[in-house]
């Protein structure tokens, strides 16, 4: 018979709402690395299992670190190879939908999606940490183990690529 109750009184899991928020943040971070939802969910689950195994604390720093290590383990080879940016996804098929729906917001979201897909995982990660999680360059450097200058450069390049991609998308939309 399995005994699922702990004898240690204070459980390490936080309350439901903050834990859910933590998982959502973890998912978004994983998404910034994989740029694919099902892959991000798998990555998050693996990271949660790693936290569980290590009896680690349920906090952002620990979870993010677990996600990152897992991602690096799983995609080490890909990371080494992916020095070149991926080609941006083809953006022509959505134009008819856009015209029919007439929803510029959705079109913008798709444009951002496509532009992000064109970034390298490192660039997306740096951009995510800076723009969404509010890390400073020093914090992001400490977290990723990269020099601060590299982080600044990654963010700068990612932003420039997005500006170009979105500029093109906007020009296309206008024409």
């Amino acid at each position, binding site marked *: *018979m*399995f*005994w*699922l*109750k*702990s*004898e*240690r009184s204070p*459980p*390490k*899991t936080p309350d*439901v709402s903050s*834990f*859910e928020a933590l*998982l*959502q943040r973890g*998912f*978004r971070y994983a*998404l*910034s690395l994989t740029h694919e*939802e*099902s892959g991000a*969910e*798998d990555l*998050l*689950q*693996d990271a*949660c*299992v790693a936290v*569980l*195994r290590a*009896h680690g604390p*349920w906090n952002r720093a620990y979870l993010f670190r677990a996600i990152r290590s897992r991602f690096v383990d799983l995609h080490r080879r890909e990371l080494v190879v992916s020095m070149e940016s991926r080609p941006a996804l083809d953006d022509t098929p959505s134009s008819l939908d856009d015209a029919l729906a007439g929803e510029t917001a959705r079109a*913008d*979201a798709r444009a*951002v*999606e496509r532009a*992000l897909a064109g970034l390298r995982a490192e660039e997306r990660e740096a*951009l*995510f940490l*800076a*723009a*969404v999680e509010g890390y400073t360059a020093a914090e992001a450097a400490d977290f990723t183990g990269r020099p601060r200058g590299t982080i600044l450069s990654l963010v700068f390049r990612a*932003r420039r690529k*997005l*500006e170009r991609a*979105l500029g093109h998308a906007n020009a296309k939309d206008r024409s």
Partner: protein
Amino acid sequence: MAAKIRDLVRAHYEARSLSPATLERLQLLAAIEPSVSPPSTRSRTRLVSVTRSTRRSATIRFEAFRRPRSRSAVRACVCGRRPTCSSGSRARRAEARRVRSRSDAENEDPLELSGEDRGSR
């Protein structure tokens, strides 16, 4: 433009969320976390493995294990009052006792023996 990009990226990620099924599964996973604390002398189960058996499910396997006996029980067993130890260690302890009693007999105080001798005379 930089602020606009930041806002767009933030909005893009904040619009994404974990699917309800995955969220529920991970919450369940974390909810049983206290039960998989490192095995201690007070615990009766321990975590054997946490594996991902399918793409979207986690399997956590526990096994029951024998609670280690307390030191007092073991000590009681050494002096032979309580037959609670395993046969191997019981045999080892019995052998150790025999050796100890033999050496005790060999190292008896010679003065005491001479005293007995004197008394018997």
